[in-house]
């Protein structure tokens, strides 16, 4: 039998993926994980915690944009 073609992403699948992304990043941006970056260090002059939060947030935005891509 030929392998079945990949079905197009349904609304339900999309929703589950997005929910997973939200949950994952909620965990990344909360304690106890946040404590890992909650120290005095600075990267390129910018406080570590500030940079971590903003960059992780940016990553979530990019991921969301990628997950909702497709025909309008």
């Amino acid at each position, binding site marked *: 039998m030929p392998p079945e073609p990949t079905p197009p992403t349904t609304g339900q699948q*999309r929703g589950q993926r997005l929910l997973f992304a939200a949950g994952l990043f909620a965990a990344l941006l909360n304690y106890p994980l946040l404590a890992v970056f909650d120290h005095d260090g600075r990267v390129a002059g910018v406080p570590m*915690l*500030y940079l971590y939060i*903003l960059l992780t*947030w940016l990553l979530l935005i*990019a991921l969301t*944009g990628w997950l909702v891509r*497709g025909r309008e």
Partner: protein
Amino acid sequence: MNKLLVITFSFGYLALLFGVAYAAERRSAARKSLVANPYVYALSMAVYCTAWAYYGSVGRAAHQGLSFVGIYLGPGLLAPAWWLVLRKIIRVCRQQRLTSIADFISARYGKSASLGALVTGVCVLGVVPYIALQIKAIANSFVVLTSGPHPTGATGPALFTAGALAVFTVLFGVRSVEATERHEGVVLAVALESLVKLLAFLLLGGFVTFGLFGGFADLFDQAAAEPALRQLFTFKSAGTSGAEWLTLLVLSMSAVLLLPRQFQVAVVENVDENHLRKAMWLFPLYLLVINIFVLPIAFGGMLKLGGRALDADTFVLALPLATGHSWLALLTYLGGLSAASSMIIVETIALSVMMSNHLLMPLLVRVPAARPEGQRRWFAYLSRIALTSRRLAVLLVLALAYGYYAGVGRQLPLVNTGLVSFAAVAQFLPAVLGGLYWKGGTRRGATLGILAGFGIWFFTLVLPTLVGPGRLPVSVLSDGVGGLAWLRPGALFGLDGLDYLSHGLFWSWFFNVGLYVGLSLAWPPTALELRQADVFVDVFRRRSLAEEVTGWQGRTPLPDVRALLYGFLGKKRTNQALRAFAERFPDALPSNVELIHATPQAATAASPADPRLLTYAEKLLAGTLGPASARLLLASVAGAEEISYDNVVGILKESQQLLEANRQLQKQSRQLQRLTDELRQAYDQLQVLDMQKDEFLYTVTHELRTPLTSIRALAEILADNPDLEEDERQRFQHTIGREAERLTRLITLVLDLEKYESGQATLSRAPLTLADVAQEAAEAVEQLARERGIALRLDVPASLPPLSADRDRLMQVLINLLSNAVKACPPGGTGRIALLAWPAADALLLCVEDNGHGIALPEQHLIFDKFFQAPNQTMRKPAGTGLGLAISKKIVELHHGRLWVESAPGQGARFFVELPLAAASRPATSLAPAARA
């Protein structure tokens, strides 16, 4: 700066907003919407960033460090889940024509008027101080800009601003009695304001970071040198606990979903569900970008202005002013004005509709029940009252906000007002989420949950702000209300150790969720609640049957319904709506003409309205008056809506079964499809086999005809010529005999082959020594080889392990291979043939090697086919039958072995036979069907 200049710019800016809104409305009327795109939608959502974000974030960052990010990160974390939650709310609201958070909750829990009123009350009490904060921000920023950093009399500008915004809101926000109508002018103005505040803030941030300092690294280096600022770099040293951070995230998540203004822009003003896709990442991106410079501005302000004892909330304006860039200060001021005014406008619109529809209308629609004679006239008035009451509500909300600001707000610290507001609307979260995903929630649970949550909210979060000289004594905080220690607002029931917000949110949600779930489980839902639950929870899965079937059952005359709609929607809109209904349910109306054009005089002859029409009319009215008032209103013409509990439960069960049956059907149809595919494949295979069969038959008969033809010809010669010479006769008879023999051999082979192919052939296996068989086979062809001068070498060691095989068949294979080799070898002394054997892993390998003409690569597969004749045979009669190798291959395969060839033209050929030793243990004695395919 010059006061006049600032006033001119302020009003110039507001005039610009009027212009933009007016243009958008004009375009909308001409059906060339400027608003129907995802970018405007996402920008309008940024009404979330108010003046509190604009000025307050910097102030908060200057004192508490990074925790301000949580207020914007929360919506960012929730945004991906909008696809599930917000889209569902939008879908429900569109289907049910709901226009506010109060509508939503009231409609979900049995269209309860009291619940709608409660939600509206909570919203007004929770949000009015928030609006007051915006007015204060505008007034203060005006004063800072015009008279210096220590604001004094700011009441004047605050009053003017509130007045101008009231005019704008009444003009563009309350236009039609139909609340479902979108306000394109307002949305475009708000989107523009979002753009202005973003650009202004970025410009200021860039100026501070790169103008006043040498970039991020320099700014943070200087801040790190100050111990007071350095401790703001981390949560630990700034004193932000994990609980507080989580509370900020959760609060802002619920706020972005439930604040009246967010509900207005995200749900009511949504043009297309698909716009949500872009907004889901554009809106968080907006929040991220506007937050980048908050910390640099806060630190910049502390470093440059730290010594002047300034309110950190004014850094945004004070920084450019102190460095002599008044134009930048003016631009920043306009950004703040944008943030504040857009919030005030949208929030006021949302609140005004809620107040009119949930506080006033339910009372007014009940009035005519006592005096039925003037009913129709009263309804016509009601629609005018609805519109006027909304306009008055706009004024009332702004007056309340201004009053709060003037009376209380100027003395009270307003730092936390925004978050306290968030916590107030967060009380709706259990009822809303439960309403969307749980069918068991009831009106009783939701009402008492919200009520209890609101009470705790007031006690834990509002009461502490009222403490001060001339108001509440400080002892309330330290000793508890009435001296009861367990009634301390900051540590209710002795719960100590949490920060102010987390403590308030925890207790309010504890009671809210507990009562909502507990009471919902304690008393079963009514029929109406059950039906509404079905409509809300399953909105994506199916259209609710229950809603259509169990609606209004009374025999209401059609003209009464029409008259009711006329009163509220006007003639034109009513006819339009009824025509749309007639298109959707052609069978529901006796005749469209009668429905739309009948005069009231013909009313007596009219037939009763279809229940579906009544449901439709109720929804139309709900879009104008809210679901609770609409239901009351319809009940006044159609009689009380009697929904039988059993009926609803029965229908819900039925639709559940229907859904299940549908799913089963789909599964079966998929199975059927798969079977069909398999059948088609089998059929194709059969066709190929059939073709092969035909081909085989054709070849066989052709092969049989050749010797037959020659036998017949010779026999005819013998019969026709009795005087043939003895010599000749004998030669002919000999040929006939040889041809007949050839025929017999051919037939035997064909029968053999058929036996193998049909899987009927069996092996009679017995342990044998390969050397013996090889010897015997070599002897059989030795004579032939010697005749053609070919040397035959045999090298099969006797020490090979015994093999379990069918001796006769194996012999047949070897003889076939050897005689083929003989045929291939050149005659005349140069031919060499070798028969070799050696043991392999768990098999024996046999090899027949010759130095003949060899076989070209493309033919190496074909030679094992039936009736294949090597093309370079020049003899008139081919040397073989073309079946030998085909049969040999079958025999070897029957032994679970392999037969293959390695050869190249002119290089001789090597035929290999691999016979597994372990085959003896396998019982298989016939060809597996798969081997035939």
